[in-house]
């Protein structure tokens, strides 16, 4: 048995759509359980009062990264067949900044807005409409920004390949960084709740 299963054609595209639906359900449940269906919780990440976003996201990244790494090392997964989005440095920097600002203003990111929508949040409905409008504007602007969109092309590049480090070392560093971030987040939350507690009194 070799993975990724789809790339080895163990099933066809129609079946993949059913799998997409199933994985989507699991994804939705995880996001909802994480409290990502609520803009107040998501936004509080940016005021250091509730660091759930960071905790859930980094734990998920670390889990998937470790799993994928060890599956590849033992030869179960062919890592070269796992999709890697190409890197275009400058558009990604600018896009990331704009998305970050949009995150704080809107209170959701695309995935979480879907969950919020499913749990009856009206602002999420408006947010999704805004997102559709944003994508439409991007589409209309595309001919004029196409050159910028394609600038800074670096191909499929990973952190280990770019910095010429061993993959395992980067995996270890990410784990260390995540645990450090979690410790800082726990400490920060405690501080903030003490502070807000005092203010209340």
């Amino acid at each position: 048995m070799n993975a990724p299963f789809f790339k080895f054609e163990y099933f066809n595209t129609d079946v993949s759509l059913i799998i997409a639906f199933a994985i989507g359900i699991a994804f939705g449940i995880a996001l909802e359980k994480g409290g990502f269906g609520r803009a107040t919780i998501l936004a509080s990440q940016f005021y250091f009062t509730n660091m759930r976003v960071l905790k859930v996201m980094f734990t998920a990244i670390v889990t998937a990264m470790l799993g994928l790494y060890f599956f590849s090392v033992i030869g179960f997964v062919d890592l070269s067949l796992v999709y890697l989005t190409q890197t275009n440095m400058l558009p990604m920097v600018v896009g990331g900044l704009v998305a970050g600002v949009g995150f704080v203003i809107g209170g959701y990111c695309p995935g979480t807005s879907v969950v919020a929508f499913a749990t009856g949040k009206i602002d999420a409905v408006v947010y999704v409409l805004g997102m559709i409008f944003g994508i439409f504007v991007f589409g209309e602007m595309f001919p004029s920004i196409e050159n910028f969109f394609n600038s800074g092309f670096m191909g499929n590049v990973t952190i280990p390949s770019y910095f010429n480090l061993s993959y395992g070392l980067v995996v270890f560093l990410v784990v260390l960084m995540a645990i450090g971030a979690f410790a800082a987040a726990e400490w920060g939350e405690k501080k903030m709740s003490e502070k807000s507690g005092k203010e209340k009194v």
Partner: protein
Amino acid sequence: MTSITKILTHAFEKDEGHVHIHIKEKPYSNPYLVGVGLGLVLLAAFVIMGRGLGASGALSTAVAVTVNKIAPKHAAQNNFYKEYVGDETTNPLMDWLIFQTIGVLVGGFISGTVSHRVKKGIEKGPRISTRMRLVYAFIGGGLLGWGAKLARGCMSGQALSGGAVLNLGSWVFMMMVFVGGYAAAYFMRRQWI
């Protein structure tokens, strides 16, 4: 769930001027356990499909298909729409991300129902009017939609999926989202706290 969000929730309910009578909603789960769960879902996507999760892609396809329906000539001149519409040999709506996103909608609803967390409402801080909140939601959605397209992915597609495969661009994107978010947070504080 920390005390601050409870305070926010209470304040919000008072702000609306009525008290909800409902079965007590369950607190959100331990974020680290949820994170492991989310990570396993992502890992399953990698192992089964060889790709990560996504969200904004489904909307992009929907937008592109709509534009293509209304103004096919216009869409045909635009590489962005063309990429999402495809070469018309296959139905662009029979797309992995679209089915996955419908799944998210269903999954979110199931989980919310089980935990008694599905209820109509607007998420906002106590110091902002409902109308302004909705205006901000629209602007924020617009910015994220635009930015995610420029960056070739959103939080799910880039930060989460790309992060797990140590994609250089995805990590840069993730850092920039936090930079942009924290930079704008000060100006948006009236909306949330």
